[in-house]
């Protein structure tokens, strides 16, 4: 991936705090222009639901009617379920957010707004001001006019999804255009950098981070301040800071949202960290599967360079620092710190034993400090608000907030940021809105492939770094997958083992062979060939894999299997002893049957069956028809007939 160097198209270089304030003024004009501004959420979640078409339609319509409206883009506001989301801001009016916007709706919205009207049915929420958490400021919109049809619309803080959230990492996502550095600065961005470089010594910065209690947000939860301190202490004039943006846990996309919606927050954090540690070069290692994040980072880095916030003599402090972007190659294991560094060095991403930590000898054997995207992003706020404020949030040993992706069988899916210590129950039911379709909660999987499943009996556990580990899971990078009664826990274990076996780098025999064998055994169980001795065998294999592998891919690989055996043993036994899958997921154990009494003989199922396994006679005006029947031998259990039948005449056993 090529890096684009700044071209300095008349961009003002920021030499000191006064310049920064001048850019802030420009940014405020962009954030709150005199004319109406429509912002469309164009992060990946928005784009995948058609936000680009909404954006284009808006541009066209505004142009056609020659309306004095600006149309811009912004990042993800977190409630991904309701995308595409857009907001309309006019001086003096409440700021209105709409959800599930289509191009047709967009046109209607524009016409109505021109008449000072809102479309009640599509309203999401309203705002009368916004919080700038980095500066402890409330920016009031100074509402003068009321709008027709707004009564009953909740404000942002009243929406159940947002009520218990506290946005620190996600502070700017959905509220700025990530391509406009001025908007980041207007909301307080880079002022923490000014304070750090011009008013604090590196040791003071490290003390602040230590006192804040910030722990790594990538999953391991190592105290960040201590890591910085040990890297600083190592002698050497060439050091590196790295950002791990190789977010690989399936179901987790928190970092992606931050990179797409607020890339400067990470850059600012890295510059502060580099200054504290004594590094002059930084790398951001971004997953190959995140092209939009890479693009936003490229724009952000270039702008930061043009404004003099990256490069030589930043803000007149004498400190120089540059950032390079590195694109991953699609390997999950490269999220492991030593594998990531090997990858940057041009090698394959194989982890190494950490007798010597990377803070002492890392990238090219130089002292290197690696932190996760969310960790870096928290740093500017800790510097500007202070460690005392930060350490009041969260629990005793887990300070601050954590961003989680809440997905799966839950009503409100998206990204949330909550103070640590909130319970799983609050997350799943109050924020997540509970389980859809009246189904019953079964488990929530946390921590990705390194984590485990937590059953209903433990829903009142507070979420933090340590409590979930005690019960066999872990908080991990923040992925939370909610499962209901139609999820098979054996299948979940098999799924994760399949993932890990594919992603294992192969270096350690225990991991390479262990994950493979565990997957084979789980496949046997899910296909009706399970034996009672398989369960103790899985437990033993799991223990060996964890003990003998040198990195945490192998080290945590057994967690999904062991936690599901621990809490859902009966389900395993049902598969093994009775060859039955209670959740009706494991194909080989299913039987599809048409209920002859209910069958209306429409023939649809036979039409869609890919294996020609359904026979019968269609009922017509002239002919009686014969109820349709599935030939079990031919049936491949794809489920198409079940999906197609409109009369609930197909039963799955």
């Amino acid at each position, binding site marked *: 991936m090529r890096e684009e160097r700044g071209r300095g198209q008349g961009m003002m270089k920021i030499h000191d705090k006064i310049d920064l304030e001048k850019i802030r003024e420009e940014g405020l004009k962009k954030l709150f222009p005199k004319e109406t501004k429509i912002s469309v959420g164009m992060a990946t979640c928005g784009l995948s639901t058609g936000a680009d078409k909404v954006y284009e339609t808006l541009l066209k319509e505004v142009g056609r009617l020659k309306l004095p409206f600006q149309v811009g883009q912004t990042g993800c506001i977190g409630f991904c379920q309701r995308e595409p989301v857009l907001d309309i801001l006019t001086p003096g009016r409440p700021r209105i957010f709409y959800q599930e916007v289509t191009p047709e709706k967009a046109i209607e919205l524009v016409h109505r707004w021109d008449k000072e009207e809102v479309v009640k049915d599509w309203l999401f929420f309203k705002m009368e001001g916004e919080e700038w958490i980095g500066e402890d400021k409330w920016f009031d919109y100074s509402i003068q006019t009321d709008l027709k049809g707004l009564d009953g619309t909740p404000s942002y803080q009243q929406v159940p999804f947002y009520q218990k959230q506290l946005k620190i990492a996600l502070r700017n996502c959905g509220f700025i255009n990530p391509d406009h550095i001025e908007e980041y600065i207007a909301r307080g961005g880079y002022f923490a950098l000014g304070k750090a470089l011009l008013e604090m010594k590196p040791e003071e910065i490290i003390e602040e981070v230590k006192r804040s209690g910030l722990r790594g947000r990538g999953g391991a939860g190592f105290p960040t301040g201590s890591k910085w301190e040990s890297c600083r202490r190592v002698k050497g004039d060439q050091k590196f800071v790295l950002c791990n943006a190789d977010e690989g846990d399936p179901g987790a996309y928190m970092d992606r949202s931050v990179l797409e919606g607020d890339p400067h927050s990470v850059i600012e954090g890295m510059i502060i960290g580099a200054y504290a540690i004594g590094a002059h070069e930084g790398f951001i290692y971004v997953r*190959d599967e995140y092209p939009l994040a890479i693009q936003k980072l490229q724009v952000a880095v270039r702008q930061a360079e043009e404004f003099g916030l990256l490069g030589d003599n930043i803000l007149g402090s004498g400190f120089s620092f540059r950032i390079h972007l590195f*694109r991953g190659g699609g390997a999950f294991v490269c999220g492991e710190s030593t594998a990531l560094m090997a990858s940057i060095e041009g090698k394959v991403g194989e982890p190494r034993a950490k007798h010597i930590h990377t803070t002492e000898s890392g990238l090219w054997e130089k002292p290197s400090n690696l932190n996760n995207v969310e960790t870096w992003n928290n740093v500017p706020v800790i510097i500007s608000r202070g460690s005392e404020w930060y350490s009041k949030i969260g629990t005793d040993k887990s300070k601050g907030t954590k961003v989680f992706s809440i997905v799966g069988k839950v009503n409100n899916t998206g990204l949330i940021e909550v103070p640590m210590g909130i319970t799983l129950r609050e997350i799943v039911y109050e924020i997540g809105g509970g389980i859809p379709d009246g189904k019953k909660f079964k488990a929530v*999987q946390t921590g990705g492939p390194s984590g485990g499943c937590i059953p209903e009996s433990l829903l009142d556990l507070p979420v933090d770094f340590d409590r979930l580990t005690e019960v066999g899971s872990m908080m991990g990078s923040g992925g939370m997958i909610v499962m209901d009664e139609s999820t098979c826990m054996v299948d979940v274990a098999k799924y994760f083992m399949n993932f890990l076996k594919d992603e294992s780098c192969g270096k350690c025999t225990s991991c390479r062979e262990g994950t493979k064998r565990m997957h084979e055994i789980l496949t046997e169980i899910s296909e009706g060939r399970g034996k009672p001795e398989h369960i103790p065998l899985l437990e033993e294999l799991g223990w060996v894999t964890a003990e003998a592998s040198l990195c945490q891919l192998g080290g945590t690989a057994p967690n999904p299997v062991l936690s599901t055996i621990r809490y859902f043993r009966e389900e395993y036994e049902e598969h093994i002893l009775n060859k039955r899958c209670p959740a009706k997921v494991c194909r080989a154990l299913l039987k599809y049957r048409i209920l002859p009494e209910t069958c209306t003989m429409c023939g649809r199922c036979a039409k869609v069956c890919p294996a020609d396994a359904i026979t019968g006679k269609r009922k017509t005006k002239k002919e009686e028809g014969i109820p349709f029947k599935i030939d079990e031998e031919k049936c491949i259990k794809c489920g198409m007939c079940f999906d197609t039948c409109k009369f609930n005449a197909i039963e799955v056993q």
Partner: protein
Amino acid sequence: MTTSEIDSIIRQYEGKESQLLAILQDIQIKEKYLPKESLEYVSQKMQIPLTKIFQIATFYNALSLKPRGKHKIDVCLGTACHVRGGERILEKLERELGISAGETTKDRKFTLESVRCLGCCSLGPVAVVDGKVFGRLSQEKVGSLLKEFK
């Protein structure tokens, strides 16, 4: 791909061996995969053993040694999509196209792959075709999805 095109890519990365992954990724963007001749040329030009190049090319999932079709379909099999039935979508596509995941149709029109989490979990099951995301899929919707590209 001409040797001079490969030369210019290598030059952009200042011929650094540590940038091998990026160089191969750029070659792949043009060729849609990594032809053996291109790899042999890179080996010779950059004086890197061919085994090292194959090591990189086979380790990283993003790189492919097999020719790819005109349209690339990536079906997400991340946890959230899996729980919402992502496997069935993949199987439906396998049946419709007559190939297994990881293969390309004989007429070189489609390549079918499974990926692990694109990060659109709220919209699961998800498939991406040529960079365009199709969310909230079902087995029935697969037919119309393919029609768009046929």
